[in-house]
């Protein structure tokens, strides 16, 4: 049977899977548009993305970017939230707003016939350009964020993540949750919302992605309709760089849970990173490929210590986190941590075997069609390619890049970039509290 698998693999690699054809242009306002036409379903996914994530929060007003983004549809153009949401939902359209570290965006999914698309687009335009930021809405939304922050404190994994980010990023904005803090949220005023929106939800700071059932002329019209009257604005200044960790740090937080949540890692890599592919492929072998990865094999399959065990890089504009995590019963925390650390340091020291690399290349390249098998997934790639300035042929060349990676490149990249002697280690659960420090 195994021979048959190999035969199938050979056949497939001759029929390379075509990546979607990405069309791109600039509107008359200079806003970049990324468009993929798909005609099989009568739907459209439209997203407007701004360089307005939490890295743009004022130092004493963390959480502002998220509040601005989540308040857009609460009152706009004189309409209240009931009217705005009915203006989407009454036509079957789905509105959503996303706010991350680097970017903030608004998007809709709508049926593509103009009777339903046009009202949803007009509504989206109002939300995007004329939010009212009413005081009452601010108060309510702020309280909801506070309830969420309070709830985080009953979750060992949320506490661990918060401590981990703070420890690896220190004073960089990546160190904070998008939600901000109890103290910073209290300082945010109506004027802050207006100023943030006016300076960052602008033409010079925007891009548009469109995927679905329309033609080029239709896509051009949608982009202009949504962004044609955005204020010009100025591109925000580049951020301060993430600094590498100077020394290892261990943090233990006592929490009344039965498991200890263990996170270890450091700042990892960025989008467009020269080491992106060796680190990505290497991590797939180390901890990124479910049950087949080394960390899962050592921690879960061989020892039954943890249900979830793995590692990932979360690339951002600057160095996003490299993070490995397990959750183990309190009395097995020491063993779990030791196994996790040894698995990572062995991998850094020795690199993958040729067999592992061969297997993981087959996994990634053979799975390429799955990455782009829906409008939703294509839309996700467009915003990453557009926002982070990845080459337009990123998807076309993806499999070739993966194929070209060698054992030596992975070993070299991990040795240079990942230093297990400087990891931050966070443990939350039934542990003696040490607070922060070595």
């Amino acid at each position, binding site marked *: *049977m195994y021979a048959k698998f190999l035969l*199938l693999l050979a056949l*497939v690699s001759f029929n390379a899977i075509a990546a979607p054809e990405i069309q791109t242009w600039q509107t008359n306002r200079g806003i970049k548009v990324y468009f993929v036409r*798909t005609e099989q*379903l*009568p*739907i459209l996914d439209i997203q407007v993305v701004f360089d307005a994530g939490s890295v743009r929060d004022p130092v004493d007003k963390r959480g502002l970017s998220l509040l601005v983004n989540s308040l857009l549809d609460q009152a706009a153009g004189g309409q209240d*939230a009931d009217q705005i*949401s009915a203006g*989407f*939902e*009454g036509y*079957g359209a789905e509105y959503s707003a996303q706010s991350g570290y680097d970017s903030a965006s608004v998007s809709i*999914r709508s*049926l593509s016939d103009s*009777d*339903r698309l046009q009202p949803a687009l007009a509504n989206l335009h109002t939300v995007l350009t004329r939010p009212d930021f009413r005081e009452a809405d601010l108060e*309510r939304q702020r*309280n*909801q964020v506070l*309830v969420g922050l*309070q*709830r985080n*404190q*009953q979750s060992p994994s949320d506490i661990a993540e918060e401590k981990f980010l703070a420890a690896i990023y220190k004073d960089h904005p990546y160190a904070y949750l998008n939600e901000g803090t109890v103290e910073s949220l209290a300082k945010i005023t109506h004027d802050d919302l207006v100023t943030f929106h006016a300076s960052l939800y602008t033409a010079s700071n925007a891009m548009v992605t469109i995927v679905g059932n329309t033609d080029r002329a239709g896509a051009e019209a949608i982009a202009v309709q949504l962004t044609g009257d955005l204020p010009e604005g100025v591109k925000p200044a580049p951020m301060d760089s993430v600094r590498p960790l100077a020394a290892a740090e*261990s943090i*233990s937080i*006592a929490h*009344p*849970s*039965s*498991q200890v949540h263990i996170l270890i890692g450091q700042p990892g890599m960025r989008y467009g990173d020269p080491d992106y592919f060796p680190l990505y492929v290497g991590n797939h072998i180390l901890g990124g490929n*479910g049950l*087949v990865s080394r960390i899962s*094999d050592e921690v879960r*399959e061989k020892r*039954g210590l*943890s*249900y979830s065990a793995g590692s990932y890089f979360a690339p951002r504009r600057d160095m996003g986190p490299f993070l490995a995590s397990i*959750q*183990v*019963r309190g*009395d097995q925390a*020491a063993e779990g941590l030791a196994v996790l650390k040894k698995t990572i340091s062995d991998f850094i020291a020795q690199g993958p075997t040729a067999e592992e690399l061969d*297997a993981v290349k*087959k996994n990634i*390249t*053979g*799975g*390429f*069609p799955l990455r*782009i*098998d*829906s*409008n939703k997934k294509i839309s996700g790639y467009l915003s990453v390619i557009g926002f982070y300035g990845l080459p337009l042929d990123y998807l076309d060349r993806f499999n070739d890049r993966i194929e070209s990676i060698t054992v030596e490149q992975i070993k070299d990249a991990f040795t240079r970039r990942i230093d297990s002697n400087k990891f931050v280690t966070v443990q939350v659960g*039934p*542990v*003696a*509290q*040490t607070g922060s420090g070595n």
Partner: protein
Amino acid sequence: MLKSILAIILCLCSTLATAQVNEYVLKNGLKLLVKEDHRAPVVVSQVWYKVGSSYEYDGLTGVSHALEHMMFKGTKKHGEGEFSRIIAENGGSENAFTGDDYTCYFQTMEKSRLAISFELEADRMRNLTLPEDEFLKEIEVVMEERRMRTEDNPNAYMREVANATAFQSSPYRQPVIGWMADLKSMKIQHLRDWYKLWYAPNNATVVVVGDVESEEVYALAKKYFASLKKENIIPPSPRPEVHQSGMKRVIVKRQAEVPQLNMAWKTPGLISAAGPKPSVEIWEPYALEVLSGILSGGNSARFESRLVRGQQVAAGVGSDYQLTGRFDGLFSVSATPAQNRTIAELEAAITEQIQQLSEHEVSAEELLRIKAQVVSSDVYQRDSAFYQAMVLGTFETVGLGWKQADEYVNQVQQITAAQVQAVAKKYLVDDQLTVTVLDPLPMDAAAAPVPAAMGDQNVR
């Protein structure tokens, strides 16, 4: 304006007929459902078994889910870990999930590799080795899963109590992952017996959605599954829920930060309207589905509009109606109070909304919105082959038959305001209600159940 929306909805229904599903049955009883979707060169393959936690009995809860874990531990032909390794080398993504009424295994792969999935699934349908040493490790993994998902998550722990309280005799009272004590006492022989009882072609449905030709899939299914032996499947005894005679109220005191409220009413599922022994009108479950949409189907729905924004009594509130199941389930409302608001205020506000539904008809505009959303989300869901396969597999496996899934949009379109009011009046009544409250205890770390062997495990 409203009229014109309705007109658009109706014409969309007729132009976008649901893609055809082809059904085949092999001689050994295996059912195969194929839905061609040629949008991307990808195929989703799912194997659904008619077994889950609602088939289990006291003392053996969680055995279906534990067996699901062990299905990756090798057969005579493919040793431990081989299944996942072969799927991975072929670029596939795979996993499995267990529910009250089903256990499902799935792979998503480039379309030419369907045979690989079939060969491996057919093999583990009858030839699992279930070695004891692997079980002893894996049951520890399952217990860690339970600790992570339930023991250390106050809201999940509370939901478990809510279910176990609402249901008295129905097996839906049991958690899918099983009670911790049952996991601790579980033996490999329990899994071997369970495997023999339920894992057979005549208790399975294979669902394939993707860029395939139905007849070719049928031929492939015959090639790999046809030789598997049937099993004499003895249907589980029916365990209907006894009639509830009065409101139940339970308080969960658990270390937490934020209180939580759950209100759950006993409601008939679609099985009671469209199953083998109908006991309610066909429209009733769909009216409950619409009612749920009126309350929480979006930002313009009543809960967001009135309780989160208007009265600001909830930080979050949503409803859920169990439409598909082997047995009748619940209509439940879960809510978190807004800052400085009490559980009592929140419960009163939700009760008032339920009362309004039974006293007044919903507006024409609300009804049209729900219908527009149902029509459009039916189209949006076709962006996911996996979701389409999920729907077919669920309907088939709980005993509704996959064809019932095609009725959904049309049935919802026909629901009237009077019918929504009627089901509110009939089912959302106090005597059928279970109220569960999470009453937070202080998050005192010192009170943690610190195990004995803790002495030297603290990290610097």
